[in-house]
């Protein structure tokens, strides 16, 4: 296994490695931003989180919300739902930012592949 890795780094293309690692981080981000509740599938995105906040501000405690496939899903506790979306978003994007920073400043290909 170790010799395979050594061999791999002999041929490696620095720029392609960085660009593709960012591409794979984005694929990870997209999967992790998916949230689910009561059979509905939602994306923890800033616009959607703000929209839920707006409904709460308008005085609603629960309401049916359309999921990503336009299915109406009854959300019984909108505040808890918003908090779930918000914490998912901040956690996932924080991890993404950390990995991104590691790639941005790293010049050792072995370490980039460790991100």
């Amino acid at each position, binding site marked *: *296994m170790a010799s*395979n*890795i050594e061999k*791999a*780094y002999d*041929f*490696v*293309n620095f720029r*392609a*490695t960085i*660009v*593709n*690692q960012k*591409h*794979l981080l984005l*694929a*990870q981000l*997209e*999967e*992790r931003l*998916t*949230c*689910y509740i*009561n*059979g*509905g*599938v939602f994306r923890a995105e800033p616009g959607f989180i703000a929209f839920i906040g707006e409904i709460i501000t308008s005085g609603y405690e629960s309401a049916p919300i359309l999921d*990503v*496939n*336009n*299915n109406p*899903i009854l959300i019984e506790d909108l505040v808890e739902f918003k908090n779930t979306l918000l914490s998912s978003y901040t956690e996932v994007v924080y991890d993404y930012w950390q990995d991104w920073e590691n790639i941005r400043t790293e010049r050792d*290909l072995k370490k*980039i*592949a*460790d*991100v």
Partner: protein
Amino acid sequence: MSKGVVIFAFNNEQIDYETIAHLNASMIEYNMNVPVHIITSYEAAVAGYTDQIAIGNRHYKDYNQTLSFNNGLRWNVFELSPFDETLVLDADYLIMNDRLNAVWGNPNELMINTDIVPLFKDEFIENVRLHDLGIKMAWATAIYFKKTALVEQFFNIMEHVYENYMYYRQVYEFGGDLYRNDFAASIARHMLNSFTDNTMVSIPSLPISRLLTSKPEDEIVDFKCANHIKVKVMLPNKPNEYIINSVKNTNIHFLNKKTILDSGDRIAELYR
């Protein structure tokens, strides 16, 4: 309502699909905490479907050999699945997060993806459509379904396509003689929608809308830890040139069966 994952695993002369399925089952149980039911040739024989397993022969780049392509019977998953809600996965679609748990209890009775994302950025995807001006591809790598009348018809159409493959090849103008579940699922989705794209019955994508997919030449270099792998990505149109990247917490369809089997001990160690 019972729920679980079903994987078909039929060995050929070289490739031990059953071991691949068991390795992936341990990854699924680790990440999703749902039961996994593996349908092997033994189970197919008990059900009386032995004659529907072998599809023909195809060349496997990872083994550089032409081997039996035992990828039939998928249309019988409606009958063979022991679950009310089933997620049927390819044995080589390695599960490295819990996001597909979003399917359970979903109002939609059938979900299948029409998009994939290649392991190498911007790589040309050959089968976005069945042919250049044809219908959209639906990828049979992952299908979620409930046991309803609509879903039964979906799998009936897949079986009909299998039995009349040359006819459908002409009608839908796709290439190749070898039956593909992806093509049959695409045609079934199209026909169920009254021969439109996806307007009559709603068959949405799975919660992971784009499946990360590698090429047969790509390899697993190392499992660093659970849900974190180093991959050797071959550069398109540059034979023998490759880069090393990492993939973590992302499900990945690894077409290179040999590299999964080579990592078997490590997977078994990490996901026991």
